[in-house]
């Protein structure tokens, strides 16, 4: 099974964006999750937080808009929307840790059946570790969504019974958006809500985690 079976990354970003309620306060992690902002309707009233100290972040800055003092958590120049606010790092992470953001979207190496998240470190001894805000984001928002390919390049499935990579947070992921399916992590198990180019039975054969079918549940 290759990635060509499922949906591409832009479609995945659109799928996540469609699930973000109007008026939500959202943090989009570095990398793939950043794409979600391209699919948020301008009238949706979704407000973006960037943990380096801003609420009301606008799109990426280009040309004359670029201001070295105005960047996102990925250190990319961004813009400011009307109604924005700035705050220092302790206040910004208080906002995150205190549960005030509705949704945080992150990438992952692995997600476990219990919602444990591994996304900061491969664990390889020669890798220099770097965590940034990953551990704060994982446990801070009311809901944590993960966006990832269901399998890694070597075919290893990333939705697992137990994470083998170093953990970022325990029982913190509520949904996993992948190229092949959307999974809901619920107290009694993992529910498949949507499938993309595969059927439920194919998923159960691929994934080493008990799955429930949302359509028959």
């Amino acid at each position, binding site marked *: 099974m290759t990635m060509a079976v499922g949906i591409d990354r832009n479609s995945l970003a659109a799928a996540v964006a469609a699930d973000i309620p109007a008026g939500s306060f959202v943090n989009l992690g570095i990398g793939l999750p950043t794409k979600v902002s391209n699919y948020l309707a301008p009238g949706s009233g979704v407000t973006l937080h*960037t*943990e*380096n*100290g*801003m609420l009301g972040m606008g799109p990426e800055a280009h040309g004359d808009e670029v*201001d*070295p*003092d*105005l*960047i*996102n958590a990925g*250190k990319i120049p961004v813009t*400011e929307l009307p109604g924005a606010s*700035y*705050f*220092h*790092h*302790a206040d*910004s*992470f*208080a906002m*995150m*840790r205190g549960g005030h953001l509705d949704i945080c979207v992150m990438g992952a190496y692995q997600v476990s059946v219990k919602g444990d998240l591994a996304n900061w*470190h491969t664990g390889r001894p*020669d*890798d*220099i*570790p*770097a*965590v*940034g*805000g*990953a*551990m*704060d984001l994982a*446990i*801070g928002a009311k809901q944590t969504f993960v966006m990832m390919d269901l399998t890694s390049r070597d075919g290893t499935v990333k939705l697992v019974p137990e994470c083998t990579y*170093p*953990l*970022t*947070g*325990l029982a913190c992921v509520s949904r996993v958006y992948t190229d092949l399916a959307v999974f809901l992590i619920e107290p009694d198990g993992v529910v498949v809500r949507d499938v993309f180019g595969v059927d439920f039975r194919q998923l159960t054969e691929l994934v080493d985690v008990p799955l429930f079918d949302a359509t028959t549940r």
Partner: protein
Amino acid sequence: MVSIVETATEAVADTADAATVLVSGFGSAGQPVELIEALLDCGATDLTVVSNNAGNGDSGLAALIRQGRVRKMVCSFPRQSDSWHFDAKYRAGEIELELVPQGNLAERIRAAGAGIGAFFTPTGFGTPLADGKETREIDGVGYVLEYPIHGDVALVSAHRSDELGNLVYRKTARNFGPIMAAAATTTVVQVHEIVPVGSIDPEHVITPSLYVDRVVRIASDRVEAAS
């Protein structure tokens, strides 16, 4: 009470060997490049540097690391595409790394300024970064006990100071400045502009004057254009 000093060199001249130095900035935004380069010139070594990143490119903190003046980095995100000097020292075993989740780093610095002895944070609970640390369950949630991070010196970049040392910052360059200014014995600030007392509305002051010991103005074409 604040001193307005003429040069960055003078501002950091008394930094002692083995000092703990808090350095503001997130990536390049809010990084006090000129103060760090003055620290390079003043010769202090065996430093512990607390900063979100471990240097970008070849200047500022990266230069300090390259020259072997940093014994230990306390940071959340050392590894970046342009952190080659840190990477080399780390792989050579020539620099110690204390990796701290970014929010815990900010809160530990804030705790130092606020006189808090320690605090229970949920961030990092159950992960390798909590290994060996005291943990506790409170109302069903797991927490890790974290301690304050004090500095001997804080090097901070702000946008504007008045003659008393009241500071304002600019956009996301605010980041670690306000909490580091409060967490060090001596706080040294570089600004783009020094204005007369009374020019900053008291409602808009971000770092009150009592946190600031020295201010130096650094002319900057880039920032003057942007402000």
